[in-house]
């Protein structure tokens, strides 16, 4: 029982007291702070939420605004989003400066295993991509688990699962 309460640093393996936010040995951020929260959180800075975009493809890229209708099947909520650069999917956490465009907190995101920074959508040359941001419980496209940080093309009517939360994506090109 004793060791269960300890926070093991994922980077150096040092044991930290519960509630510790930065590993005493190597300084790695321990967002769980012990048996209090569950998911890893790569963001360090409290203010910044911008994620570096994938390198621009050479040549002419036609950046067109896309509209996504995200149908959250578990709750029946529909969210309509326009993708200009990218949109973050996750759970709102003002304390860490995480403001996802698609906030799944109200849809039971925490219980369904949605990370605060779970995944992102973005467009390239008229195609919509989804990329998992190394979320704890994974992102699934039509039932297949995505490798973190790799873009996958999304088609109209695809089903995506963030953790165990199901959504259906409708794409409207302008």
């Amino acid at each position, binding site marked *: 029982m004793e060791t269960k309460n300890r926070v093991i640093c994922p980077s150096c393996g040092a044991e930290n*007291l519960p509630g510790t936010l930065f590993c005493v040995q190597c*300084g790695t951020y321990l967002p769980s702070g012990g048996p209090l929260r569950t998911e890893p959180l790569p963001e360090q*800075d409290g203010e910044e939420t911008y994620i570096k975009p994938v390198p621009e493809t050479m040549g002419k890229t036609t950046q067109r605004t896309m509209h996504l209708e995200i149908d959250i099947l578990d709750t029946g909520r529909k969210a309509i989003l326009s993708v200009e650069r990218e949109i973050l999917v996750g759970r709102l956490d003002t304390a860490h400066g995480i403001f996802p465009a698609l906030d799944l907190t109200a849809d039971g995101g925490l219980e369904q295993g949605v990370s605060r920074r779970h995944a992102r959508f973005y467009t390239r040359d008229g195609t919509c991509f989804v990329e998992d941001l190394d979320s704890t419980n994974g992102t699934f496209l039509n039932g297949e688990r995505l490798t973190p940080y790799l873009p996958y093309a999304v088609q109209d009517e695809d089903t995506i699962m963030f953790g165990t939360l199901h959504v259906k994506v409708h794409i409207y090109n302008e």
Partner: protein
Amino acid sequence: MATFAPQEDYYAILEVSSDATTEEIRQSYQELVRRYHPDSPKGNTYFFRKIRQAYQVLGEPSRRRAYDQQRRQRNSDSTLPFTWDTKLSRSTLPTLTTSQMLYTLVNIRPQSTEPVGKRLNLALVIDCSASMKGTPLHYVKMAALDVLKFMHPNDILAIIAFNDRARVLTPSTPARNRIAFSSALASLSSAGGTEIYQGLMAGLEQVRRYASDEYINHVLLLTDGRTYGDEDRAVFEAQQAYNQGIYISAFGIGEEWNDKFLDDLARAGGGISQYISSPSAVRKVLREQIQELNKSIAHKLRLHVKPADGVQLQSAYRAAPYMELLDRTLGNVLKLGRLVSEEPMAILLEFIVPPRQAGPWKLAQLELAAEDLGTGEKLITRQELKVNIASEVVNEPLPPQLFNYLSRINAFRLQENAWRALDAGDTKQATSLLEAAATQLFDMGYGELAQAAMLEVGYIARGGTSTGRGRKKLRYGTRSLSIPSIQQSRRGNHGN
């Protein structure tokens, strides 16, 4: 014997001024008794009782004196030159079988922006060892003359030059006497070694001649070299001076000076240590320092942490206006030095909290003492840290300000630990800590400092040693990351 309540304003009740004579008070009392006696048409039992109570205190000179004294104390509490509050990383802790970590941020915010009207009493202690020869000494002379322009004519300044021994160029003299300073500075030349203790003692001696509550007493030490064998004595003297209300700040020029020693000296002396990478920046740094001294509103700040049984204060850092590990020679009494208007101070405390059963708990008491520079009053205020221990885990957001400070202190601590490891000869540990520091710095958006850290990693990996420049750039660069908004104006790292 009638007791009294200092929160009651008996003077107002008796409709007299606070400097009324006993006879005036008696007359007013008799008038009021007639008006409010329960038997009279306008009678009011409550008022009548209050009036009687007030007169029992003010009508008796010895009781009145005691009451006056208590009221003054109360009033001084309400006119603190600062406000302060605390933020906990969690307000509810789960019942665990192990100890747990709790972070507390103490914010001290200056209230008054009015100058306190104190004059400065300074000594400028200049290193004139052989290494300062030529351009560096020239810049320092220019800076010293420039300082005079920024001082009030009635401010006091002494200039001391030191190498192996100290020479008083100008004894403590009012700043309006510019000729005395400029002719003395003209005679300054460089030779010999560096013995900081000698210079420091001569500087303190000059400042002591005028040292009083009427002045802000400060020694400014400028050096580019290392002192050998007299470090401990110098730090001891700094401590003594601090207790007399004389502060010491230390400025290291170039790369050769001993950063650990100057930090210790400034910390013991209640001042600040700064890195001046190029002699041409001395002028700017000194000017800022004089301006800052003029904005002091309180000094002798002390935070006394009184943890409950079993609670341990693991470490204490100053988080703003610059970062440092606080001196623990006095145990849980933390010396915080001066409070400057418009520069909020933040202190981060790390507590180890033992297992405890559910229920509310007073974890610690914080006592903040200070001396108001304007009125000379000694102020003491207290706050309690309370948490709730609950059998279930409660998810609560971390206060963003606490997180911001904590992540910066984390980077600062990593690189400090790296230098300590390197000094102890553990290059492997040093490089891995510096790499970790670089990662954190990079994540926070301080690319330049992250790069400096990685450069040092390379040097250490190849030659087993770091560069003085890189080390100082990192140390004094990270410590001034405290507040993003004022980061530009208050770099510890001047003149790149």
